[in-house]
Structure formats: structure tokens, C-alpha cells
């Protein structure tokens, strides 16, 4: 780091050199390009073999229209599609909103809030397999930890969470929020910290304090990043696999599946890989507009992903 700062100390302003063409630029163009292509070959090869080819192959696997006729007549698929929409719509929005509010809480400089932040971020680093399995066991029988807590507080037996579809869905969404809210809190925390203090000072002179500052100053300034993060999270959550697979495993009776787990079961448990691909590809009408919107917002606002 010190080396970088040293460099930056005598370095020219970053914005000025980019417009200037170095004198040797034209002379070395050819050899530079050759080197650049050589340096890019490993990445392009990896991309072609392990991203582009699977994508094309997947599109080919799911290209037969008959598959979609089969898919849309399966009542379980309709449940799955609705579950996925609910999972994304509720999970992402609640998570983002809470993360935004909590990032304000974590702006506090006191020692205990800062130590709490370190612990609060732990779910982000832990393997999904481990934590979701643990949550599954908290819920699964009347001897799970949550039921024991329930019994300790109320004296009665707790509910059987994974027997009711709605409770199992709620459990999935809450677990999802548990795992991913810390990460987005951190993103919003960094964004909040880059807001210059002058803006708050000016707002305070104009009489904005307390919650008004949150509504009229902080939120408008973070609106762009909030929107982009929400879009990005929607795209990722559409393909979320481990949460539902481990927490409810589709219980009761495969009524809480989402697209990723449905496709997984179709492909690897029932042996219809093409149907599994078709199920995942049925998310494309939602996925493609989201990605286009996301890319456009990123271009328009200059926010770096």
C-alpha cells in the first residue's frame, strides 16, 4: 500500500493522462496488441469452454417447445413459479430495506457497535450448506432449538414449521434474509460513508434532522445504488438454490420448491435433464429484462459493480 501511495504522491492526475496519447503509442501498437491477446487467451479459453459452451448447450437442451407444454401442465411447476416470484419479491425487498436501515445503525462509531458489526457479518462468510442445514434442524421436529425456546417461553409445544406450506415458505425467506442481509448492509454502509459530511451540514442548517435527514438526504443520494443492488440481488435470487434445498427441502410435499430446486429434482432425481433446463429457462422472460435494466442503470449512473 505504501508503494501505491508513494506512486500516487508524484503521479499525474489520473484524469489527465488518459486523454493524452503517449508518443510511442503508435510505434508499439502491434506488439502491445499481440501481448494483450496472449494475456487474454487463458480467460477467453475458460470463458468459451466453461461459460459460453454450457450456456449454448443449455439453450439447445431447452429449445424444444414440447418441453414447455409438458412444463406448464404440471401443477407442481405452477406452484414453483409462484413460490419463486414470492421468494424473490419478498425476500429481496425486505432484505434490502432492512439492510438499508441497519447500515444507518452501523454508522455509529461506538466500540460495541463496531464489534457487533464484525459478528453480524459472519453469515456472509459461512458456507450456505452448513448454516442452512443448521436452520433446517432448528425447525424440523418438535425437538428443534426453536421449539425448545418456544416451550421455555410459553410452556406449550411449538408449531411444526415445515408441515405448513406457508410457514415453510416463511422459514425459507427468513433464512435467506439471515444469510444475505449482512452482505448488503456492508454495501450500503460503504455507500453511506462516501456521502460528504458537508451535505448533512447544509441540510441541518435548512432544518433537516432526525428522520427527515434519512428521507430527504440519505435516501435520495443512495437511491441509485439501492436500485442497482436490488436489481442485481433479484437476478441472483431468481437462481438461488441452497436456501430452499437445505432449509425446507421443498417440504411439505414439494410445495415450497423454487425454480432452481425444481429443475435440480427434475434433472437429477427423475432423470429429465431437458425438463430441468426448460424449468430454469422459463425464468428468462423475467431474467433478461432485469439484466438489461441493470446494465442500463450501471451505464447511466456510473456505479461500479
Amino acid at each position, binding site marked *: 500500500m505504501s508503494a501505491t501511495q508513494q506512486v500516487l504522491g508524484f503521479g499525474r492526475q489520473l484524469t489527465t493522462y488518459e486523454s493524452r496519447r503517449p508518443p510511442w503509442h503508435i510505434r508499439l501498437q502491434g506488439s502491445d496488441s499481440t501481448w494483450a491477446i496472449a494475456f487474454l487467451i487463458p480467460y477467453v479459453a475458460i470463458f468459451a469452454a466453461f461459460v459460453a459452451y454450457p450456456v449454448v448447450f443449455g439453450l439447445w437442451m431447452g429449445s424444444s417447445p414440447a418441453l414447455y407444454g409438458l412444463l406448464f401442465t404440471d401443477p407442481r411447476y405452477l406452484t414453483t413459479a409462484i413460490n419463486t416470484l414470492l421468494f424473490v419479491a419478498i425476500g429481496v425487498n425486505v432484505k434490502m430495506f432492512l439492510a438499508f436501515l441497519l447500515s444507518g445503525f452501523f454508522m455509529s462509531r461506538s466500540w460495541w457497535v463496531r464489534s457487533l458489526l464484525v459478528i453480524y457479518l459472519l453469515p456472509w462468510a459461512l458456507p450456505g450448506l452448513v448454516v442452512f442445514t443448521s436452520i433446517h434442524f432448528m425447525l424440523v421436529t418438535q425437538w428443534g432449538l426453536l421449539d*425448545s425456546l418456544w416451550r421455555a417461553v410459553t410452556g406449550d409445544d411449538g408449531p411444526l414449521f415445515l408441515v405448513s406450506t406457508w410457514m415453510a415458505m416463511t422459514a425459507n425467506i427468513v433464512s435467506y434474509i439471515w444469510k444475505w442481509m449482512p452482505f448488503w448492509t456492508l454495501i450500503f454502509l460503504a455507500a453511506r460513508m462516501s456521502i460528504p459530511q458537508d451535505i448533512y451540514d447544509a441540510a441541518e442548517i435548512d432544518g433537516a434532522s432526525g428522520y427527515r435527514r434519512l428521507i430527504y438526504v440519505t435516501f435520495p443520494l443512495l437511491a441509485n445504488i439501492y436500485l442497482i443492488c436490488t436489481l442485481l440481488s433479484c437476478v441472483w435470487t431468481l437462481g438461488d438454490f441452497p436456501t430452499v434445498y437445505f432449509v425446507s427441502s421443498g417440504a411439505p410435499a414439494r410445495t415450497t420448491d423454487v425454480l*432452481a430446486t425444481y429443475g435440480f429434482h427434475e434433472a437429477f432425481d427423475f432423470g429429465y435433464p431437458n425438463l430441468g433446463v426448460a424449468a430454469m429457462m422459463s425464468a428468462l422472460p423475467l431474467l433478461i429484462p432485469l439484466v438489461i435494466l441493470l446494465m442500463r442503470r450501471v451505464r447511466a449512473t456510473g456505479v461500479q459493480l
Partner: protein
Amino acid sequence: MSMALASGHKHTPPPLEGGGLGGGVGAASTPPRNLDPLRGSSPQGEREPRRRYRKQRLLRKGAAIGLGVFLLIWTLLPVYNMLLMALDDDADEFTGSIFPPDPDFSSFASVWNEDYWLMAHFWHQFGNSIYLGVATMVLTVLIGSLASFALSRLRLRRSWVVTDFALLTYVLPTAFLAIPFVHIMHKYGLSDSLWSVIAAMVAFATPYAILILHQYGKLIPMELDESAKVDGASPFQVYLRIYLPLMAPALVAVGVYALLLAWNEYLYQYLLLSSTRNMTVAVAINQFFDSDEAPWNYMMAIATIYSLPPIVIYFGLRRFMVAGLTMGGVKG
């Protein structure tokens, strides 16, 4: 909350970031506030507003502590449940208690000695997991740094095509690619091989590496490259002698990201690895669900041991992880 906001210095770097990579974000510094508005504006004589202010502050502090306690329990409850089950001496019954009645470390001892048939190759599988993580890390850092050097410092025409495809790959939900990926790995003859998982993880981690390194590379002036070239250095020497050393913090961030991605990912390991010798700990844990007996305490002991490396890495290198995010990468 707003009191806490008002009295803090806004512009100090984020708490986790320390002196690491924070330079890119919010680098402009403003002088710290020296004026407490509430204290400054109320005249000395008025007692009542001040008392109300004090009461309000106490209330706010109480609410903040309440929220803090809730967040602590909320965060640690699943982790605690994992330990509770691992410390239980009874193999296939839930205790139904909140505290371990008699904490028993025998399940950890059994895992250590590979005493049970489902974990007979535990340490070998642990080694596989480490191998997978480290190979992914090294390859991602290598391929990512080469690509980002070519894209941002060698002025290749139409290089935005590569950057855009990297961005698209980064946005892609990886679970949607799993089914065709398994078929393709059969075609490549890589089924049941750790290298198929490594290939997948490297393919998914490099786009992030390229984006992050591209961001961070903007901090290093091009004049350095130019002067090195004037002195007769080839682009490869510039890459090796100037680019890599100056990019070290970002390379650590990218490496940690790739390592944790490979360690924490489950779906691809499960689909691509099938034999006991080749599987990783993540796949081995899942085998407990498929067996008739259910020694959950062993399973949770394995899960606890399996989550130790990410926890250690998180506590040791979290400023790099956080800096990797605040430099502009948004991926968990």
C-alpha cells in the same frame, strides 16, 4: 440512531477497512465536525430542553442496545444450534433443550479419528476441499490479473467486448448453468474429477477478479508502465515487476473471494463429484441425509470443523474482503 450519526466523524473509513484498500472510496476528506448542534444552540439558562435531550439520548441508547442484543442473538442462533447438536452425546435424538445438558466432545474426537463409516475418509476429503479452494484461488488470481492487465493497460481495440462478457457472467445466476455443465463435463471426460469443479469455480470467479482489478488498477499511473517501456521492458516484465507488486492488496481481496467461493459453494461439488476418494467435505456432509442411520451429532461436528477455515479467513483477512466490496464489486 440519528444522534449517533450526527456526532460521529463521517469521513473516517469504514470500521473494517482499516488502512487497507479504502483509497478508492470516499477518499475526499472533510474536516471533522467541531460543533455539536444541540448543545451549541441551546442557551445556558434553559434547563428543560437539556433534561429532555438527556432523556431522549438515554432512550435512544436503550433502543440501540436492544437492537444490538437482538442482532447478536439473530446472527448467532444457527451457529449456536450447530454447536449444540455437535456437543450432544446422543447420536440420533434431539435433546429438546436450550443448553447442552452435558457437553460432550466425543463427536469431535470421532471425526478426528474417522471412527464412523460415513466419515472414514474425512481428512482426505478435507484435503480435497483445501485443494479445490487453493487451486481456484491461484488460477483465478493468475488468469484474472493477466486479463485485467491486458484489458486496462495494453490498449487493445474492442477490449470492451471481453469486459462486457465478464460483467454478464458475473451477473448470471450460476445454478441455472448446472445441468448443461454436468453434461459438458461428461463430454470433456472430467466427470468425478476435482478439476471439473475447479474449472467451474474459476470460470465464475474470474469475472469478479477482472472487474475488481480493473477498478483498483486505475489508481496506478500509466506513467510507470511507460517509463518502464522506455527503459526496454516488455509488457510481460511490466506485468511481473510493476503491475503485480502494486496490485498486491487487490490480488489478496480477489484470492480470498475465490477461495471462499470454492469452499462455500455446494451445488457443483455435489453434482460433479461422486466417489468417496474424490468428494469434498461439503458432499460428504450431505451423505448423512441419504443414509438410514442419522448420527446428527457427527454431521454437525463435521459441519463445525468445515466452517472453521472460512471463519479464520474472515477474522484474519476481513479488511481485504470488505475492501474488495467497497472497491466496487458486489458479490457474496
